[in-house]
């Protein structure tokens, strides 16, 4: 059973305003070039639905390592081969968020390069989640979404003012 219908690019072009209206309601349209030998397809879907899928399916799982000599913290996200460090938990989280924003910008600018690298091609969904955020505080909250110690560190920081 295949419930997904495909439209040629020329038909999709003619019908584009209607495709966009339907996508906003939740309907997906798949389009491809039927005359081409490659089988690349493009889905036109609601951005809200797309981001909902990413937010639910690609949670961040940070790991904290406290230095045994008390000199600071390292927070890493193993799925993304990235880390941050600092003398306090909140400063390490801030550093990680900075690095993540930097990586997301580079990745999405050079996505065709990064998608060819075997151990980085699957980073896209996580970095796309970061791309829509407007400031570092939001990035820190997303990183901490499944980690109560980091959420507490953010709360403590905000209460200090």
């Amino acid at each position, binding site marked *: 059973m295949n419930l997904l219908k495909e439209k040629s690019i020329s038909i999709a072009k003619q019908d584009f305003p209607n495709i966009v209206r339907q996508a906003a309601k939740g309907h997906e349209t798949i389009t491809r070039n039927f005359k081409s030998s490659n089988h690349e397809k493009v889905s036109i879907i609601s951005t809200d639905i797309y981001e909902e899928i990413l937010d639910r399916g690609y949670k961040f799982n940070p790991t904290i390592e*406290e*230095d045994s000599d008390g000199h600071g913290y390292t927070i890493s996200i193993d799925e993304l*081969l990235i880390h941050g460090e600092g003398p306090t938990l909140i400063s390490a989280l801030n550093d990680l968020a900075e690095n993540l924003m930097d990586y997301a910008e580079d990745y999405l600018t050079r996505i065709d390069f990064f998608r060819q690298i075997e151990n980085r091609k699957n980073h896209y969904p996580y970095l796309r989640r970061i791309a829509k955020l407007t400031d570092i505080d939001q990035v820190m909250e997303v990183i901490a979404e499944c980690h109560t110690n980091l959420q507490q560190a953010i709360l403590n920081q905000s209460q200090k003012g």
Partner: protein
Amino acid sequence: MPYQFTTGNIKSIAKRLGLQQVNSKKWNGTDINGNFWQTYIHDHGDGVPILTGTAKQQAKQMGFKDLEDMYDFFINSRRKR
């Protein structure tokens, strides 16, 4: 055995692997085998020790098995990778 690295040690390792500094903290590049690696190095001064947790992450991000593997590469100038 605990392996200790300084900022200068990590930068030296990154350079030997073919990585270059691209902004204030990010180093990336392609090694002798054509593999792309990327890591972040805070530059507090070449003699400043790196947190062990950070060194572990940098080792992983530069393609080493663990700290011991990265240390072996550091002290063995004949290793290309």
